[in-house]
C-alpha cells in the first residue's frame, strides 16, 4: 500500500491528463472513480452501473476514498481512458451517441453492458483488452499500446504546446520523486516517457474546435494573441489552448464538488485559482477584441451598453471562481450546441437554423450565423442577448455533471421564454429611458436592467436573463454549481408576467438552491 496522500497525488496527476478528463463511459467531465478491472476512470454514476455488473466483471474503486495497491497504481500509469477506449470502442460507429449528462440510468446501463459484457465494439484484432494484457503479457501489451498510439499519431497537432506542458509535468513529478525513495525514482523515469507519448496523441482532440465564436474573418489568430498577452499568468497547463482551459475548468468544478472528501487536493486547488483569475480577463479581452473589430456596431448602439456589459463581466465574472463569464465564450463548440438546443424561442434561432446538437466539427458558417442578427433590426442588443445567454447556459452546464436531473431543468430554462420577467422589474422602471445611467461600478443591477430599454422586450428579456444570471451566479459557483443550476432554473420557470413578485421568485429560487 502506498501512503494515501502519495496515492492521491499520483492519481490526481493521472486525472490531469487530457485523456482522462472524461469518464470512459459517458461524457461526464470529472471521473472520480475507477474500474480497476478495465483500467479506466469513470464517473460516479457509471461506477454505480459498473458495481451492478458485479465484481467478476468489473471492480470499482474510488480515486480518493479507497486505498490502491501499488501494482494497480503502476498499471494506471501505463494507460488512460482514451487509449483503453481504442480497444473497447474500436468499432463503435461514429454516429453512435455515447451516454451523456441527460441519459437515463437505463441508457447508461445498457451502454456499459454492451461495451463490457457483450463486448460489442471491441477491437477484434487484439487478443485482449489492454488492462488484462498488462496483467498477463507485458510484451503484447506494449505492442498493442504502440499500435493504438501510432494509429492516432497522425492527428497530432499541438506538439509545441504539449512539450511545454510536459516540461511542467516532469518538473512536478521530479518534486514528488524527491520525497520518495531512491529506488522508486528509477522506476518512474521510463514511464514518464511513455506517458508523454500517449499524451501527445490524444491532446490534439480538444484543440480542434478552438476556432471560436469570435474568430470573425477580421480577427485572425485570436487565440495566439490572447495566450501571448496573458501567458505570464498561466501555468503551462493552461497555456495549451483555450479549449483545453475550458476542459480544465470544467473538471475543476467537479473536483470542488468532491473536494470535501479529498485529503490532498490542496495543491491542485491553488492551481485552479490561478487559472480562474486569469480567465475572466481573457474573456474581457475577447469582448474588446470583438468590439474593436466591429466598430459599426459599437457606434450605432449606445457605447454604454458595451461598458456596462464589460462592467458586469469584470465585476461579477472576475471574482467568481468558475467563471460564468467566460465559459461559454471560450468553448464555442459546446456553446453553440447548447444554445441551439436550448433556446428555440429566441431570435437567434433562425440563424442557427437546423443545427443539431452533435459533437461534430464546428463549421465555419455556423460561426458567422450568430452574428448575422447583429446587422439586423435587433442590432446590438440581440448580440448581447446571445452572448449572455450563452454565458448563462455554459455556466449552468457545469452543474449537471454531477446531478443529471438538473440538466433537464436547465434545458427548460433555456427554452423558457419567461425570461421576460426580468425586463419588468422595479429597478428598471425607475429608470425608464435612461439607457445606461451610471457607468460607475456598484450598481450593476441598474446597468443590466437598463440594457433592455434599448430593445424589444423579447430581446430585453434575453439580455437581462443572461446578465442577471451571470451576476447571481458569480458568487456561488465555486462549490454549488449543481445547486446553482437547479435554483436558477427553478426560479426562471417561475412566471411569465413582469411583476416584481416574479422577480422575488427568481431570487428565492437561486437562494434556495444553494443548499
Amino acid at each position, binding site marked *: 500500500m502506498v501512503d494515501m496522500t502519495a496515492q492521491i497525488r499520483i492519481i490526481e496527476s493521472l486525472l490531469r491528463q487530457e485523456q482522462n478528463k472524461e469518464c470512459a463511459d459517458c461524457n461526464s467531465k470529472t471521473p472520480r472513480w475507477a474500474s480497476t478491472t478495465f483500467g479506466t476512470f469513470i464517473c460516479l454514476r457509471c461506477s454505480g452501473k459498473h458495481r451492478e455488473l*458485479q465484481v467478476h466483471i468489473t471492480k470499482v474503486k474510488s480515486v480518493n476514498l479507497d486505498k490502491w495497491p501499488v501494482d494497480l497504481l503502476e498499471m494506471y500509469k501505463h494507460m488512460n481512458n482514451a487509449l483503453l477506449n481504442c480497444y473497447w470502442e474500436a468499432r463503435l460507429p461514429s454516429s453512435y451517441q455515447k451516454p451523456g449528462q441527460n441519459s437515463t440510468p437505463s441508457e447508461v446501463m445498457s451502454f456499459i453492458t454492451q461495451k463490457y459484457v457483450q463486448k460489442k465494439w471491441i477491437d477484434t484484432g487484439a487478443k485482449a483488452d489492454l488492462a488484462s494484457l498488462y496483467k498477463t503479457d507485458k510484451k503484447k501489451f506494449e505492442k498493442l499500446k504502440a499500435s493504438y498510439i501510432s494509429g492516432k499519431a497522425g492527428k497530432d497537432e499541438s506538439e509545441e504546446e504539449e512539450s511545454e506542458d510536459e516540461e511542467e509535468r516532469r518538473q512536478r513529478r521530479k518534486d514528488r520523486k524527491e520525497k520518495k525513495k531512491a529506488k522508486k525514482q528509477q522506476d518512474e523515469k521510463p514511464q514518464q516517457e511513455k506517458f508523454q507519448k500517449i499524451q501527445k496523441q490524444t491532446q490534439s482532440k480538444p484543440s480542434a474546435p478552438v476556432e471560436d465564436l469570435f474568430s470573425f474573418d477580421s480577427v485572425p489568430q485570436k487565440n495566439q494573441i490572447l495566450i501571448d498577452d496573458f501567458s505570464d499568468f498561466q501555468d503551462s497547463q493552461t497555456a495549451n489552448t483555450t479549449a483545453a482551459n475550458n476542459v480544465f475548468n470544467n473538471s475543476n468544478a467537479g473536483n470542488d464538488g468532491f473536494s470535501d472528501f479529498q485529503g490532498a487536493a490542496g495543491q491542485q486547488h491553488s492551481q485552479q485559482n490561478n487559472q480562474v483569475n486569469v480567465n475572466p480577463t481573457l474573456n474581457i479581452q475577447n469582448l474588446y477584441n470583438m468590439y474593436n473589430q466591429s466598430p459599426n456596431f459599437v457606434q450605432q448602439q449606445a457605447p454604454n451598453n458595451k461598458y456596462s456589459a464589460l462592467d458586469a463581466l469584470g465585476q461579477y465574472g472576475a471574482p467568481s471562481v468558475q467563471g460564468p463569464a467566460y465559459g461559454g465564450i471560450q468553448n464555442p463548440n459546446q456553446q453553440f450546441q447548447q444554445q441551439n438546443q436550448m433556446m428555440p424561442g429566441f431570435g437567434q434561432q433562425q440563424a442557427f437554423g437546423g443545427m443539431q446538437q452533435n459533437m461534430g466539427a464546428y463549421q465555419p458558417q455556423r460561426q458567422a450565423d450568430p452574428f448575422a442578427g447583429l446587422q439586423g433590426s435587433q442590432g446590438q442588443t440581440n448580440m448581447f442577448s446571445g452572448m449572455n445567454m450563452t454565458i448563462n447556459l455554459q455556466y449552468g452546464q457545469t452543474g449537471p455533471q454531477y446531478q443529471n436531473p438538473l440538466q433537464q431543468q436547465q434545458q427548460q430554462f433555456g427554452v423558457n421564454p419567461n425570461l421576460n420577467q426580468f425586463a419588468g422589474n422595479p429597478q428598471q422602471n425607475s429608470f425608464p429611458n435612461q439607457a445606461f445611467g451610471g457607468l460607475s461600478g456598484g450598481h450593476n443591477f441598474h446597468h443590466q436592467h437598463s440594457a433592455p430599454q434599448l430593445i424589444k422586450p423579447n430581446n430585453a428579456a434575453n439580455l437581462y436573463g443572461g446578465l442577471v444570471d451571470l451576476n447571481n451566479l458569480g458568487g456561488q459557483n465555486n462549490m454549488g454549481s449543481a445547486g446553482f443550476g437547479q435554483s436558477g432554473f427553478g426560479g426562471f420557470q417561475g412566471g411569465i408576467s413582469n411583476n416584481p413578485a416574479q422577480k422575488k421568485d427568481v431570487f428565492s429560487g437561486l437562494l434556495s438552491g444553494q443548499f
Partner: protein
Amino acid sequence: MGNWFTNVWDRLFNEKREFKLVIIGLDAAGKTTILNKMRFDEYINSAPTIGVNTEDIQVKNINIKVFDLAGQEKMRNVWKYYYSSIEGIIFVLDSGDTQRIMEAKDEIQNLLTNDEAKQVPILIFANKQDLPNAIRGPEMTDMLGLVEYVNKKTPTVKVQESSAVQDRGLLEGFEWIVDRIVQLAQQRSQQ
C-alpha cells in the same frame, strides 16, 4: 414468559422508543440496496454512497432508524463513531467477491473487538446469494471465523444468507436483530 415479553413491547410503544441500526460493510456489498429494498420494497440500483443514507423502516411494528454508511476504505474510519449510539449493527458482505472475504473478515474482527460494538447484536448478511459463485452461509461463517460466536447459547452474532435482488433473507435478518435487541434490553433491565 409471555408476560415479560408483552411488558417489553408495551414499554417500547408507550415510550415511543426507536431503535437505531447501522449498516456497514465493504464497498459494493449491497448496503444501500438492502436499505432501499427494506424501505421502498423495490430494487434500486444506486451509485456509491457518499456520506450516509438514513431511512426509517418498520420491522415487527417497531420503528427503526437505519444509518447506511459508505464502505470505502477511507470512510470505514467513521463507522466506530456510530457504535455508541446504536442498538444493533448490520454488516453486509458480498458473497460473490471471494477475493475480499479476508478484508471483510478483518473488519468484522475489528467489530468484535470494539468495546462498544460487542455490546450489541451483530447481524451479518451474506448478501448477493443470487450470484452463481456465492459463498453460502455456513461456509461463510467458517471463513469469517465466527463459528464459536454463532454457536453460543444466546448468540449475538448471526450470519444470514440474503439477496436483495431476489428479496431473500432480508426480513428474517431484520427480525432476528430486532428480537435480539429486545431480548438484550429485557435482560439488562432485569439486572
